[in-house]
């Protein structure tokens, strides 16, 4: 059955590429950081409620599920920070040329992974590791 050539809606033919991957990652990491914000508030409130409450809060924060969220939070912080700086430069009118945008995109992605490893090695113990 021969179908006549019809125009496709743009989103149907949109090729998956690094630009939309990084854009989606910026959103996902933003959502993860918002969740991590609630952990920060929980941690501060526990510290204000005295040593016993604080100790039990650290045990909760050190539980595997929350630690997983915090590792995701550290990656999110790293990526959202680096890609966010990229966004700020765009807003100021710099870095739109495709070769530059591609380079800064890769720099943000690889830099985020490196920064996560560095941050985890420095902060892993503070983030409920020794609790």
């Amino acid at each position, binding site marked *: 059955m021969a179908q006549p050539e019809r125009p496709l809606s743009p989103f149907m033919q949109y090729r998956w590429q690094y630009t939309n991957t990084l854009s989606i990652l910026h959103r996902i990491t933003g959502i993860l950081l918002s969740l991590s914000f*609630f952990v920060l508030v929980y941690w*501060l409130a526990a510290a204000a409620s005295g040593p016993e409450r604080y100790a039990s809060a650290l045990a909760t924060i050190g539980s595997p599920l929350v630690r997983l969220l915090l590792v995701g939070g550290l990656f999110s912080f790293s990526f959202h920070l680096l890609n966010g700086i990229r966004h*700020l430069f765009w807003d100021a009118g710099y870095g739109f040329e495709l070769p530059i945008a591609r380079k800064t995109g890769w720099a943000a992605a690889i830099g985020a992974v490196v920064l996560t490893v560095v941050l985890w090695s420095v902060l892993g113990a503070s983030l409920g590791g020794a609790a």
Partner: protein
Amino acid sequence: MSLRSPLGRVLGLGSAKGGSSHWYSQRVTAVGLVILGCWFLASLALLGAGAQHAAVISWLHSPFSAVMALLLVAVTAYHAQLGLRVVFEDYIGDKGTRLVVLVALKFALVVAALIGILAVLRIAFGAQA
């Protein structure tokens, strides 16, 4: 912050909503969070292994740390509200649901921010560990 020209305002032209103010606030808070976020992770590293209770208390007893922590909580909540709002607006089509979710989002972040601010103030003005 309005990007409308004075002439446009007099003639009643342009958007009736606050898109440019949202956009502008998102950027200003982003710049602030670059500094505040890096400060917080550096502080966390300095607190050392396990972030002992006494270390956290004496850390927030310093006026500088307390002000930075207050700013971190307030600016993060505001920036998160601005960002999550756009995500919800994009994916929730139904206007009634969207309104409820956006109000709930604001409510949750304001409550969380107040809890965080109160906690920092309690430690800052509380007894030295």
